[in-house]
């Protein structure tokens, strides 16, 4: 019986994450428009886009292309289930941080396989940039993980959230300030926001990986981006902002983080790939290492 309950909860959480993700992107587009003194699309614009994309015919380059993009979407769907959000915590004793990160890399691998099987060099260059960028932001994030693990002496997100319960003062944001800043910059890289969006640079490599993705494949890509957005901000909330008591505060906190990322995205130009990686290995890594040393000593 509990399996059925867990199944329904899982699907519910999946749907929630998709909806919240799309809503965030919609609101994000509205805010960026407002920053550019434009009127901007309605917040639910992305739901229209998704529905239109899924109802549009499309071309594919063989079953590796389809399998890859489906894997990209569903691996993230599988990862979101383990993320503790507010009071919804489906598998409390099974949400190890490293496991979620590696599940997300499964999504990237799936998408990478699908996209580069199309044979379009733009796509593969995009993937090469994405992987390099991943190496870039993964290193400071590792420093952050290290310091959080040591600090709260536990690896599962549920326990980390528990460790931060109580008032604002014992949030990790306060207790591990350098770690938070480093993670924030790494989050910018993870979300693929402006300074680090060389992977889908429309002008240079014709929107990178998505060059051959037509109707429903682009829909899968957008769904994957929204769930990824939800998970990454969710992890940051759990790690540093003390994971909320109920789901709505959790989503509010997520939006705060996303809003900050959006602000930077609206203004910043785009890094070159090696500049991006070396930037990631300079300041955020330094902060992360400083934080790790503080925690360890």
């Amino acid at each position, binding site marked *: 019986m509990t399996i059925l309950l867990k199944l329904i909860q899982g*699907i519910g959480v999946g749907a929630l994450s998709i909806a919240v993700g799309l809503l965030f992107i919609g609101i994000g587009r509205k805010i960026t428009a407002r920053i550019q003194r434009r009127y901007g699309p309605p917040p639910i614009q992305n739901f229209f886009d998704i529905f239109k994309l899924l109802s549009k015919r499309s071309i594919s380059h063989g079953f*590796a292309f389809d399998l890859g993009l489906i*894997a990209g979407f569903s691996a993230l769907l599988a990862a979101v289930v383990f993320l503790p959000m507010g009071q919804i915590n489906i598998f409390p004793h099974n949400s190890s941080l490293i496991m979620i990160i590696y599940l997300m890399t499964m999504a990237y*691998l799936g998408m990478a396989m699908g996209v580069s099987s199309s044979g379009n060099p733009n796509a593969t260059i995009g993937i090469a940039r994405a992987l390099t960028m991943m190496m870039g932001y993964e290193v400071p994030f590792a420093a952050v993980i290290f310091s959080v693990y040591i600090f709260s002496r536990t690896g599962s997100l549920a326990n980390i959230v528990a460790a931060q319960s109580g008032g604002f003062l014992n949030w990790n944001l306060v207790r591990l300030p350098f770690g938070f800043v480093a993670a924030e910059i790494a989050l910018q890289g993870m979300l693929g926001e402006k300074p680090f969006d060389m992977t889908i640079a429309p002008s240079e490599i014709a929107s990178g990986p998505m060059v*051959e993705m037509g109707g429903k494949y682009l*829909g899968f890509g957008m769904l994957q981006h929204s769930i990824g957005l939800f998970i990454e901000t969710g992890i940051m909330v759990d790690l540093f902002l003390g994971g909320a008591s109920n789901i709505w505060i959790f989503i509010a906190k997520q939006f705060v983080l996303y809003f900050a990322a959006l602000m930077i995205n609206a203004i910043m130009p785009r890094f070159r790939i090696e500049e991006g990686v070396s930037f990631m290995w300079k300041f955020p890594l330094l902060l992360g290492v400083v934080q790790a040393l503080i925690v360890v000593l």
Partner: protein
Amino acid sequence: MNSNLIWLVALPLIGSAVAAIVVRYKFLDRLITFLTFATTLFVLFSVHVGQSYSWGLNFLGTTLNLTLNVSHLSIFMLYISIAFGTVLTFYSLIDHSRMKGFLLLLILAANNWIFMSNDMVGFFFAWELMGWASVVSVLGGREREKSRHAALYYMIMSVSGSYSMFFGIFTLWRLTGTFSISANIAYLSSIVGIHPWWVLGIVSLFFVTFMIKAGIFPFHTWVPLAYAYSPDAFTPFLSAVMSKYGIYGMLLFMPLSLMERGFPSAFGGVPWTNYIFVWIGVITAVLGTVLAIFQDDVKKLFAYSSLSNLGYVVAAIALFTPVGITAGIFHAFNHLLFKGTLFITLLAVISRSGTSKLSEMGGLWKKMPITFFTFFVGIASAAGIPPFNGFGSKWLIYQAMIKQHLPFATILLFLASTGAFMYLFKAFHSIFLGQLSHDYDRVKEVSAVGKITEFFLMFAMTFFGVQPGYILKPIGAIVKSMGLKPLPVMANGYVTGMFSNIYVPLISWSLAVSFTLGFILFFVSAKHKYVSQENNYTAGQIPEDWGLTPETYQFSWNFYQPVEKLFAPFFRIKIDGFFRGTGDWTKTIGSAIKEIFVGNAQMYAFFAIVGLIIFVIAGWMA
């Protein structure tokens, strides 16, 4: 005194003799190799922990008894190496690369003997036998000249390694008077408290040999050459199994008591010798990854990747905590599985495409779908992605590292693992994805034998990924036999880390459910139609007018060129300068000394007289 142990060693020797006779008929030779491997595996089932066998050999005046005894570690290593060997030889029934069966069987005999031997003479005999047999088999590579050079380089390293072990054995023999390994280690750990430096000296003699064989940081320069230029059928065995001998040796010679008490504990509660080994492991991991990213030859790429994975294993084992050693051995097993699979699939790909250069391949997934899937599962597990077996060990290694408060090591290991993802995808893309060039149109899928092996390997990787319990139990027994408290392995598939624990089947269940959801969504939305590889977005330019060919349109040359500038300063340090330096130095001295033999009689007579006079003076003064 169970005699089946001696069969484990004798059977391969007989098999190799038979194979040597029929070396002319290729298929017969491979069939015999496979049958010998299979029967050895069969005999292995009857071997249990604790059995021992010894036979006297009156040599050196004393009756020296060569004893074999089976500990948890050796039974584990025997199972994985022989099982993998059987799979490999089964697969290579269909391959026709220049791999001599009898050499592989000689190595198998040495392999069984090394894992079971309890006396140092036998250990050394088997080690040397495996050494020269593998050197000769590296000779059969595709490129004649390069494989000759690689074999020579490998030979020098392995011979100097075994000579340092020679020294170690006899210094121990001088101290304890016996050759048995367990007695010597007990003696060493008893005197470690008194003068640790002396013990460190002896153990490092052995460790040099093991590090050379495993290809760890200072001695890794022969690894890419040997793996890349050895015959394709031999590389899987060389990289998957033979690198584990070094690890086995390290585990044998590093019992807890030996290291723990003797030395002041360095940073983070780890004795400083272990600390150095952790750092050697980490450097190897990072070095392997960085060098692998920019390789164009696929076998060299995977050689560097084995190098980096062994760096992981050494870093984990050197931590010397229960989690560390479990993680290390678990990763060694995983590395054997996924690296073996990758090299086996490469065997098929290279024999069909005729080249091992990444930039000349591409788009093979249309022609070899099953090999494509095996390769995909292989790189997914090599990158450590959950449902497959690579994840469990990497996850445990990180936990072990973090538990020991080693920030820099963890960060570098993370860098190595994401770097691993980079070069794995590069290899995966350049071989299977992208544009299929026309001269690969005739490429066929592997035959039935190949398919069976590939399905078996895929099943093994997913099985040990989803149910790591089956492997963690024997590893727990090993850790207990080494005097540590093993990791609690409760329900099957429940991996308990230091910080958190994961119920691995749960991940696979959630993946399965979400995949079904994905497929449902896929088939609900509008239909798609399949398009040929030329019909790509080319900014409106029609490919035919533009003279577009699949080769030119495939992006696999200089895959990570922008990042090269990042690591450029890193490449300038030539690591194997030291070895090349000694090589040239000896050559120059050799030619200098040759001048002594000038060639005329008077000079020789003059030498004789001068020698005589010196002796007389010496005698007169003494």
